[in-house]
């Protein structure tokens, strides 16, 4: 076995950070080099909770790492990525890759010129159900795919997720990209046009908490994405990801997080779903680091992150103009 790859974690701002830290601790091919966070108290607490090193400076973490995972708020993705590229450190970045396509492109360019790889954190591709669906689509078992109805509704995550300056938007920025990436990956097709209805209806935020995007794909199929923070606080789990795929020869329903025990808990007065399915974060991170170690392209690239982000950006423009928006128009 070759040497372990040294991976650090930048920021504990994102709700996925604890799962990422657990994964960096657990995977045997990884040496977890520690955590840096602009918020020192948060970073120190996380480092101690995960029994890893606290790095007071970003440069300190970058200097001792081959790769970093970025779990900051969305608007900081670019500066962390550019710093990593400058230090010749590979990057696995939380989604959305950035809050503007310009930032995403700058990140891709920075990594390319530095000769490091940029990956986007889309764990849905690691779901065995989604992988089985991908295989069935690729084998032609479903015939031509004509429509996909995807949903990624969740509870409102709180903290900076509802702050436009840190998140770049609301539910549509948070949740569009998972489904958009899954649809691209499954169909092997690209989005061409997006219509969106967004609204701030539930939490009194100045960003949207409800949204439905309806999209055309270049190959002629269409797809919709429900990106709402629509799950009530009493919902038994954080949310979910579903795909309803309609092919000429078959229809498939995927509910990525369906594998769960129902826990009726008298001690809290709550009912919770306790997932027992595969750890998608671990598989996603393993896929990234294994590619880096083998010198292969990472399975989910910065380009993939950009393509998914374009759908969200086009959706915002559509909601604003009340018209469908061509993806080519937001590239111009």
């Amino acid at each position, binding site marked *: 076995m070759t040497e372990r790859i040294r991976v650090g974690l930048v920021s504990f701002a994102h709700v996925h950070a604890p799962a990422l830290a657990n994964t960096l601790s657990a995977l045997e091919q990884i040496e977890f080099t520690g955590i840096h966070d602009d918020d020192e108290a948060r970073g120190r607490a996380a480092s101690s909770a995960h029994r890893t090193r606290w790095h007071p400076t970003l440069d300190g973490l970058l200097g001792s790492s081959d790769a970093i995972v970025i779990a900051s708020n969305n608007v900081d993705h670019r500066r962390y990525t550019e710093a990593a590229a400058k230090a010749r450190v590979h990057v696995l970045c939380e989604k959305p890759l950035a809050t503007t396509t310009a930032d995403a492109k700058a990140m891709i360019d920075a990594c390319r010129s530095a000769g490091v790889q940029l990956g986007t954190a889309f764990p849905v591709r690691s779901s065995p159900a989604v992988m089985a669906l991908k295989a069935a689509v690729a084998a032609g078992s479903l015939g031509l795919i004509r429509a996909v109805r995807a949903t990624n509704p969740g509870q409102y995550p709180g903290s900076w997720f509802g702050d436009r300056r840190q998140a770049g938007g609301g539910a549509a920025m948070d949740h569009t990209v998972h489904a958009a990436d899954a649809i691209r990956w499954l169909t092997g097709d690209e989005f061409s046009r997006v219509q969106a209805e967004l*609204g701030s209806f539930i939490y009194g935020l100045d960003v949207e908490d*409800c*949204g439905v995007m309806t999209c055309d794909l270049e190959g002629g199929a269409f797809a919709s994405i429900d990106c709402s923070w*629509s799950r*009530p606080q009493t919902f038994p789990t954080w949310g979910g990801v579903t795909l309803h795929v309609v092919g000429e020869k078959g*229809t498939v329903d995927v509910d990525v997080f369906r594998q769960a025990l129902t826990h009726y808990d008298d001690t809290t007065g709550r009912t919770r779903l306790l997932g027992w399915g595969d750890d998608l974060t671990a598989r996603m991170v393993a896929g990234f680091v294994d590619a880096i170690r083998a010198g292969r392209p990472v399975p989910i690239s910065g380009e993939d992150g950009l393509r998914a982000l374009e759908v969200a950006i086009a959706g915002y423009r559509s909601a604003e103009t009340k018209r*469908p928006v061509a993806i080519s128009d937001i590239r111009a």
Partner: protein
Amino acid sequence: MPLRIGVLGTGFAGSMHAHSALAIDGARVVAVAAVPLDDATALANECGARVATAEEICAADDIDLVVVATPTYLHAEHAIAAARAGKHVFCEKPLARTLADAEAMVRAADEARVTLAVGHVVRFFPEYRQAKELLDAGKLGRPAIVTMTRGNFAVGSARGWYLDEDKSGGVVLDLMLHDLDTVRWWFGEPSRIYARRFKGNEGLEYALATIRYDERPIVQIEASWAEHSGFRTGFELRGDRGMLVHDSRAASPIALQSPSGPAGPAMMATPTLHETPYLVQLRDLFARIARGEQPLVDGHEGLRSLALGLAVIRSADTGEVVSWKVPA
């Protein structure tokens, strides 16, 4: 004197309405029509009724109400003939295939001073009624985002006229119209519509529509003739104080399996309600007619829901957002 009924059409709807009428005190099915005429024999025998042509039923002296359960594109012809002959009309949804037809039907009924009722039966389904009551009572807070779904196998594979867009309006006027009528019933008139749909081989058809209200909510409706395991409905109704979820697949109180496969209905009846919503719908209509009241869903209301369905089709065909204007 009992309400004397003539039934036009012996498909799912005609047969359902005839059997429902049989169970209602004060109603009697006296004639059944089908094309070809022989197709009416079985249902007529079950109802103790005579077989007659649609024209004969519309003209008959001993009929008070005509159930129009013929293919969609024939509704206008039959409903107008019945109304002009002074008969009340209960017309299956969609009211008609075109707005012009629907307007002519409404006009004919108004001029003849007969009742024209439209079979938007979802308004009689208890799960949808209960949702409406909770909404109206404010239990969900203000509505935020709503998703509705309705699917069936490719019905056109069994009944060819469904495959002809000009005769049926496809999955939008067949299935989605139920949910379009429901959102009007629940939330009133929307502001704009965006929709996509495809038609595949062997009756496959699938549509998604987003219905936007001026302020709130956003509604997404899915209608599918690609639900190969059979009929299903569902909705999620999220208000700012809570959410209601309905999934017909999770709501069956009885499930049967046998070594020889899903032979359920042949082995035992699988009722899920003592009275079907179809029966409740007809009983309500007959009672209103007896009291001289308007039906719950009259021709004007059916016309507005049809117009919303046509707007969905227009958006799907053009790929543009369509502004909703309530027909006058």
